[in-house]
């Protein structure tokens, strides 16, 4: 690449010297959804390169293309100047590319050492696994990275942060040259984050190329040399962190101000409780949940993944049996023991995964939309088909669902329209409490915006809207009140001005 000709030029970034990895004109589609559109990227040894963008911007897809989990539809990737096309992550690993995933892949029933040396265990002369050696090697490694852990401890007994360290060490054993961290701090407390930074700086000194994915700006400015910003699957810009400021990156990431995406919050404060939960318990999942919703409120449920948010919503919707607790809708006690009774009292859940829990993909849009409210349109056990037709076509019009006709199979619709079908079927019961679990996962920004508007309208109409989300921006942008969950309990409640990223994270990691 270095020669007499002018330096190659990728979208405003002049390639200087020898990047270890370059990607040019990468395209990737998943069905109807364009995940990456003409994206360029390059990174260097001895540098930490940030990848920033909102959920759904394409960060994960891009990194999974680097590791070989996904293959690009078109575009070229070069590693150390050589063209590559990994068919699977194993090939990527062999060529020195490793990734620390958001979801940890450590095996809970094995020890720290066994996990780290999984698949490359040192052998004795007889060809058996040499546990002695594993422990000695692990001890050395732990010392090198200044981690205080016993090699013989079972991974299930470790904290999430410690498990993540094990995962990182496991990757280091293969001596990778490019290491990708996918939102590594999302489950860590402050001190633990510092430890992680230390490891990343050590890698940098060892002349490794580090790619650091995050949507937290402060963090990117702290740890990275450069940050590449993606938005809706497109390359936006690459900035040097020394020269950039926080607002600049935010503007690049979102492309518009926050107010434009999220509808205006509830300004009229009413005291009228429309929904109340008292002392709700589900053994081993959630305990002592108390909260209420006033008319017009959108309640956000925040927290790190797996702290009981989903279980709370599921038990309110009758999908998970609660052991004790009282639920009131407009001062009236609701008896909820299964989904049917929840629906009949006006509570329904828009689930996180519309494909496995919300829709019948192999059935028509009509059948899907009609399903939840079937019981409202029957005579004896016969369905009033005319009424159903009327209801379905009204719903399609009202929610602006883009489908050629109502007989189209739900599986053929785009993500945003599928989500509207899920909403449409819930609206059929004239809900009084609507629960949303990660409502905008995997849908594009425009569809999101429309969905947010709809949620706000429902809240204004007097429906209690309760939303759980892993996307902090969404929680902050939408909620009038935030409940933060930690280990199955509500660890903090925030209202108005107090709803900030810092405050939410404070409670989310269990600090009081």
């Amino acid at each position, binding site marked *: 690449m270095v020669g007499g000709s002018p330096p190659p030029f990728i979208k405003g970034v002049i390639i200087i010297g020898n990047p270890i990895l370059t990607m040019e004109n990468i395209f990737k589609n998943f069905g109807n959804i364009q995940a990456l559109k003409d994206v360029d990227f390059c990174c260097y040894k001895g540098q930490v390169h940030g990848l920033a963008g909102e959920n759904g911007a394409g960060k994960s897809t891009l990194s999974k293309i680097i590791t070989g989990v996904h293959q690009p539809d078109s575009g070229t990737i070069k590693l150390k100047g050589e063209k590559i096309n990994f068919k699977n992550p194993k090939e990527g690993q062999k060529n020195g590319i490793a990734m620390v995933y958001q979801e940890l892949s450590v095996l809970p029933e094995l020890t720290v050492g066994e996990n780290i040396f999984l698949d490359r265990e040192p052998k004795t002369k007889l060809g058996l696994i040499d546990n002695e050696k594993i422990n000695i090697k692990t001890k050395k490694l732990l010392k090198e990275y200044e981690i205080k852990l016993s090699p013989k401890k079972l991974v299930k007994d470790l904290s999430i942060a410690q498990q993540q360290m094990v995962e990182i060490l496991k990757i280091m054993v293969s001596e990778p040259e490019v290491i990708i961290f996918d939102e590594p701090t999302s489950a860590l407390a402050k001190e633990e984050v510092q430890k992680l930074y230390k490891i990343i700086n050590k890698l940098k000194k060892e002349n490794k190329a580090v790619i650091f994915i995050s949507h937290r700006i402060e963090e990117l400015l702290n740890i990275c040399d450069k940050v590449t910003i993606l938005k809706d699957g497109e390359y936006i810009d690459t900035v040097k962190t020394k020269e950039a400021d926080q607002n600049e990156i935010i503007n690049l990431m979102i492309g518009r101000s926050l107010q434009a995406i999220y509808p205006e919050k509830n300004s009229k404060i009413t005291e009228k409780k429309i929904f109340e939960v008292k002392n709700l318990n589900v053994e081993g999942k959630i305990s002592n949940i108390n909260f209420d919703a006033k008319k017009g409120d959108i309640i956000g449920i925040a927290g790190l993944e797996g702290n009981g948010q989903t279980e709370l919503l599921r038990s309110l919707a009758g999908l998970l049996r609660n052991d004790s607790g009282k639920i009131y809708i407009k001062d009236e006690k609701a008896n909820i023991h299964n989904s049917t009774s929840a629906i009949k009292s006006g509570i329904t*859940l828009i689930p996180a995964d519309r494909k*496995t829990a*919300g829709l019948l993909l192999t059935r028509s849009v009509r059948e899907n939309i009609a399903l939840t409210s079937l019981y409202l349109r029957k005579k004896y056990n016969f369905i009033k088909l005319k009424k159903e037709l009327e209801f379905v076509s009204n719903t399609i019009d009202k929610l602006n669902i883009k489908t*050629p006709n109502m007989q189209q199979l739900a599986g053929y619709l785009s993500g945003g329209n599928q989500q509207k079908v899920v909403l449409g*079927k819930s609206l059929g019961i004239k809900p009084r409490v609507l629960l949303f679990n990660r409502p905008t996962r995997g849908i594009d920004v425009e569809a999101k915006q429309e969905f947010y508007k709809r949620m706000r309208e429902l809240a204004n109409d007097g429906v209690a809207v309760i939303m759980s989300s892993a996307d902090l921006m969404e929680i902050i942008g939408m909620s009038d009140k935030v409940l933060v969950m930690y280990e199955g309990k509500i660890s903090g409640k925030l209202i108005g001005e107090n709803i900030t990223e810092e405050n939410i994270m404070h409670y989310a990691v269990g600090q009081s």
Partner: protein
Amino acid sequence: MNSPLSLSKYTNLWDRYSQVVIAYLFLVVILIVATFLSDVFLSINNLTNVLIASMPLIIASFAQTLCLITTGIPDLSVGAIVSLSNVIAATVMTTGPFGYIPGVLLALLAGGVFGLLNGIIITKGRIQPIIVTLATSAIIGGVALAILPNPGGLVHPGFCQKLTGYYYGIPVPLIVLVFLTFIMWILMRKTMFGRSILAIGGNENSAYSSGIQVDKIKILTFVLSGVLSAMAGIFLSARMYSGDPTVGEPVTLNTIAATVLGGTTLSGGKGTIIGTIAGAIIIKIINNILNLYGITSFYQYIFQGLILISVLTFSFLREKE
């Protein structure tokens, strides 16, 4: 998504009914093949005979269709209930003072009760349907053998003549078939039950979160499956005039082949009654051709296995597409 509305309407129709159309095309092909193999095949008389002969399989396949739509897993007790119902018909109908009526009622009741048993064990015990129906098929088969250890007995002759005869020049089985098909069609298309089983088969989780009472509907499915299987046994008895405790053995396999051939998918949530009729007649004709060529029963078993495998492979490839 921007395709003209009229065109997409046709694509939808094709999406919904392609399985049925393919099943009937296949039926036509089989009829043509059969005509070449035997000169008497294409007479009205013989076609009526084929229909009468197919009735037990068609009705038993209706039972199988309901189970496959709802759970995506075949009900392995269908054949055993056919045997039990046949044995009851051959032992009860001969002696009672009310002619054939107690036998018919008792057979249907037995089918319903064993169906209920299947349904309750599957839903309340959370045990896989395939294991449960395998176990109950052994039990039901044993009960049938206990009632009538060896082939024999006598089914009410007047009843047999009525059920296989003509009514105002129209074959009674045809009338029953049209009537039953109509009922099943209403059930699938216009009732809460029909909509619910399609939903459960499509995605049990989604159906449950949408307020469908999954357990109740599943139990009802197995009860209906039991009653329909018993009805199939009664029709079989009317053709045989006697009882045989193992007569239903090949039926289970054949109903699965017929149902899948008729376009019901093994992933559940998809299938039609009309398609199943074609599937059952095709299987019956293939078996007849094998008989015609004097292929002995061991080889027929081998053929039945092979047919089922080919049908499943075909269905799998079609779905993958």
